[in-house]
């Protein structure tokens, strides 16, 4: 983690979209078992568009900032666009070097989001291995 990256700490202190939605289409929770960080993502889906996103959870600055940045980037996108987001995209959003030991922190938000959409589509959840994908090699 890079402490001079003020934007990370900003998102950590003042997360975006960290709100509880009253009438979500789908609500989904995931956990990073190795550290206990947990996120809940809520989506309002209208005609295949993400009309609203809310989330809650506890964790380190990297996982919280990544979720905050990710939720910003999802404003008014289609489900298909959201589903196409890769581990690389999230790391680019964070714009700090993410070492192997922080990879799961960075990707917890993406993992929760993708599995929320899959729950909405009645698809089985992605495993952590699938979410992390080839991020480990491309880093």
């Amino acid at each position, binding site marked *: 983690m890079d*402490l001079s990256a003020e934007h990370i700490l900003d998102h950590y*202190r003042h997360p975006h979209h960290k709100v509880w939605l009253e009438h979500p289409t789908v609500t989904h929770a995931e956990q990073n078992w190795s550290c*206990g960080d947990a996120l809940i993502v809520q989506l309002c889906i209208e005609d295949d568009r993400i009309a609203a996103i809310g989330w809650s959870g*506890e*964790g*380190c600055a990297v996982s919280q900032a990544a979720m905050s940045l990710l939720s910003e980037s999802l404003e008014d996108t289609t489900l298909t666009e959201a589903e196409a987001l890769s581990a690389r995209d999230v790391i680019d959003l964070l714009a700090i070097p993410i070492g192997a030991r922080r990879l799961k922190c960075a990707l917890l938000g993406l993992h929760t989001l993708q599995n929320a959409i899959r729950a909405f589509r009645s698809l089985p959840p992605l495993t952590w291995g699938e979410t992390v994908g080839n991020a480990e090699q491309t880093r």
Partner: protein
Amino acid sequence: MPLDTAAIRRQFPFLAPRVDGQTIVYLDSAATAQKPSCVIDALTEAMKTSTGGVRRGMHPLSERATTLYESARQEVARFIGAQPQEIIFTKNATESINLVARSYAASVLREGDVIVLTLLEHHSNIVPWLQLSEEKGIAIRWIDIDDAGRLRMDEMEEALSDPRTKLLAVTGQSNVLGVRPDLATVLPMAKSHGVRTLVDAAQRIVHTPVDVRALDCDFLAFSGHKLFGPDGIGVLYGRGELLRDMPPFLGGGSMIRTVDRAHFLPEDPPYRFEAGTPPAAEAHALAAAIRWLTALPLQDREAHAHTLLSHAIERLRRVKGLHLLGPGTADEQCGLISFTLNGVHPHDLTDLLGQRGICLRAGHHCAQPLHDRLGITASTRLSVGLYNTIEEIDTCVHAIEEIQQAFQQ
């Protein structure tokens, strides 16, 4: 006489000046200890001069490897007051505990029996029992702690006097709170109720002399790597009369007397429990680590750990928003202190400390039931070793304060 820390530090290659100029402040010895040169030398020397199949072969290299391995067993036996045939070499403390669960407990315990565990346990002294409990319908009974982390002795007494209780598996020292359960009270209490006992000594063995006859426990487990020895070797002590009747753990070469197409006849202990080619060089290096450690006077080692820990506690206590876990005194805690810091997640803290070469552990430390009990998901742990100094503690606490400030701006 205080420990000559400067002389000790010179024996640890990890402290040698590095090309990149970064100095390492290692405050994570409770996870694994750094190795002194004599241990590294013993390991390479054994591999250079004595590589040969242990107890398999008539040639001189086999014989040398066998001699190293068996003298290491004697060294370990002396170290904890056991007989050599009561010492089983394993991969680590985790495997030692699994051996007891799979061999002893699985063959002796029956459905409806109770195993007593404490909330201080490490996952390696929890999961093997949960596995067994699922398979055999054995109940687990948990002993709670008070808010400072001391075992609830009233609950212990009640649990041990339950006639269904057959086994107590208890840590000798918590790897999160540093507290040492009063084994001198708990173990005789168990014995008086006919309850068998296993002590997880993975942490305790580093700081506190362990004598299995004085403790009068049935089993005791520890790892080599926390004791300044190499990875890949651990120890299980088992009371001789119990080992004699226990079925094998893993099957394979070296643990049998004879095999035909339908049967096998197992070896006597300890060989019965050591299937496959054993780690001779590692055993030899572990013996070197034990000799190295015990050559330093116990009183001096204890005083060193106590001084460092009281200093760490005193300094950490002054950090605003920092909460110490456990009793918070070096008299009751041994070698380590864990804490949480408002506004800074343990992973962020240790990541940023790590960037400055300061190594601390963060997370649940393989003790989730304990963290649940404390009402937190993760903590940061500072643990001290013989090579640490007061200045290193100050460097660490100062860095913690700076990181906290950066988070609060």
